[in-house]
């Protein structure tokens, strides 16, 4: 018996591997997605290794060197308080990454269970959740985040919470839609036919099957979160100075746009590249994970 089981084990392993390999090959063929992935990778490395890449404080002012143009010593120039912009962008990546992850976490934490419940149980529960979702979706996302900041106040934590909540309805809708279609699958009926409890059906049978679109939305959502947080920062309603935050940097650079355009330009480029990276990667993931394109 043992002789025959060996090659079987090998074969199972191989076919699981080949699925991964196929997805990886598909992702690699997709040049845009690859570019997006590289951008995200650079972004993550920068955020994680910020103190290594840029020793010293990004917030220590040096008024003697304020508004210097890009030079060899300060590749991206300095801002109005003489802080090097490169350093602030590097440290700003930590803040924006924290916000991106936090926002998506809040969105998933609230949106995923509500979407599952709404889609699976239907009826009155669904009606209730969906009308609340409708109300939230009636506001443009950024306006909703802005209104929430007005209620909660400024700061890193509140930025995460308010932008996160503004994304909740998107997750609810997405997860509900997927749940509705998965719920009708025969394997869910079969699970009920062997007496499985609703909770286990939701967690073991439905949740894993809605994860593909949720993963894509998470990648796209991180891009949007960075943009929203930067928007709040730009308006002075996000993370407060002296914490280096891209949106706030952009906002304070606005005053010097004519004489020292580099102050606003480089944070803007940083925001642009980070959002671009998440969007391209999200599109790439969609192409790979979308069952309609699967062979």
């Amino acid at each position, binding site marked *: 018996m043992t002789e025959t089981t060996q090659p079987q084990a090998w074969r199972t392993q191989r076919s699981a591997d080949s699925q991964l390999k196929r997805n990886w090959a598909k992702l690699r063929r997709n040049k845009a997605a690859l570019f997006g992935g590289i951008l995200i990778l650079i972004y993550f490395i920068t955020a994680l290794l910020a103190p290594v890449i840029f020793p010293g404080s990004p917030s220590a002012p040096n008024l003697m060197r304020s508004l210097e143009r890009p030079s060899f010593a300060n590749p991206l120039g300095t801002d109005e308080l003489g802080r090097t912009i490169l350093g602030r962008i590097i440290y700003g990546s930590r803040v924006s990454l924290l916000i991106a992850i936090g926002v998506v976490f809040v969105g998933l934490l609230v949106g995923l269970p509500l979407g599952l419940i709404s889609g699976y149980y239907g009826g009155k529960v669904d009606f209730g959740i969906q009308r609340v979702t409708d109300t939230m979706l009636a506001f443009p996302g950024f306006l909703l985040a802005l209104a929430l900041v007005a209620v909660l106040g400024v700061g890193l934590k509140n930025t995460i919470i308010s932008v996160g909540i503004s994304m909740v309805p998107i997750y609810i809708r997405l997860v509900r839609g997927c749940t509705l279609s998965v719920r009708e699958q025969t394997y869910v009926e079969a699970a009920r036919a*062997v007496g499985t409890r609703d909770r286990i059906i939701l967690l073991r049978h439905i949740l894993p099957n809605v994860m593909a679109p949720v993963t894509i939305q998470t990648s796209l959502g991180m891009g949007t979160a960075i943009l929203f947080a930067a928007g709040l920062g730009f308006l002075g309603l996000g993370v407060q100075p002296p914490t280096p935050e891209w949106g706030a940097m952009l906002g304070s650079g606005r005053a010097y746009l004519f004489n020292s355009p580099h102050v606003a330009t480089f944070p803007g480029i940083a925001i642009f590249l980070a959002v671009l990276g998440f969007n391209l990667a999200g599109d790439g993931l969609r192409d790979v994970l979308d069952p309609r394109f699967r062979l």
Partner: protein
Amino acid sequence: MKQESLLSVINLRTRFHIYEGMVTAVDGINLDVYRGETLGVVGESGCGKSVTALSILRLLATPPAEIQGMILFEDVNLLELNLDEIRRIRGNAISMIFQEPMTSLNPVLTIGEQISEAIRLHQGVDRQEAWSKAVEMLQMVQIPSPEMRAHEYPHQLSGGMRQRAMIAMALSCHPRLLLADEPTTALDVTIQAQIVDLMERLKEEFDTSIVLITHNLGLIAEMAKRVLVMYMGKVVEEAPVEDLFQEPLHPYTQGLLESIPWIGKKLKTGRRQLQEIPGIVPSLLEMPEGCRFHPRCSRVMSICSKEEPPLVQKDGRWVLCWLWK
């Protein structure tokens, strides 16, 4: 000889509230399943076969569905049980096999996980023991190298293998009753034969009664002892299988049997086409007056369109038709 009845369905009526009104999918059917027997249920698509099975396990969402009547399983009315009690019966005392082996297994769970889930649910054993029981079941349904197959995902198995896995899951808790809803329809003929053999063998082994739902009369002839013929939510004929094939009483059953192509069988004179039952099944929303089959019936009488036919007993068989009154 009076056999012991395992399942008695009495005057079961399943209706659905839909936008256009009320649809009666199953209209007052009665059936008995005895211990250890296979009951065949035949009929065209949409005649209420599957709804009957789903009603028995209460798998229909209510609303929109509405189930009335009595479903006595071992003298307990399943319709009166609460959700927890019916859950304990599902998969344990009564289980079900579905038509589509391609979609009735969850693509993200391994075969072993899915089978052991059912075992753990009802037998209160730990994960490891459930797993080894699952492997045992896979062996029983003749899946080669079951230890390894248990680790595989549904997409790595062929259709026939998946249906075997489905059967293993359904029988894993040794149910007293198996509802097989078109278990071989999606499989090709040689695999069908294997699955039929397998079900016959396991039926003996576990002493399980089977309700075999199908539109395949060949399968009925092979497996069932008694047959119910359904048409538009009603049982129109009930007979032992030999009698039914030898001398169908209801014109609908006669039509069904005549529609089977036999190699070498002479077609009716002048016809070079397959026999068929003329017309189509009417919409359940526009139920014909009187006998539901009368617009398509070859032996229609004037009374048929006016009054519902009575249930007539003839030589120990039942038929719902004016012809035998």
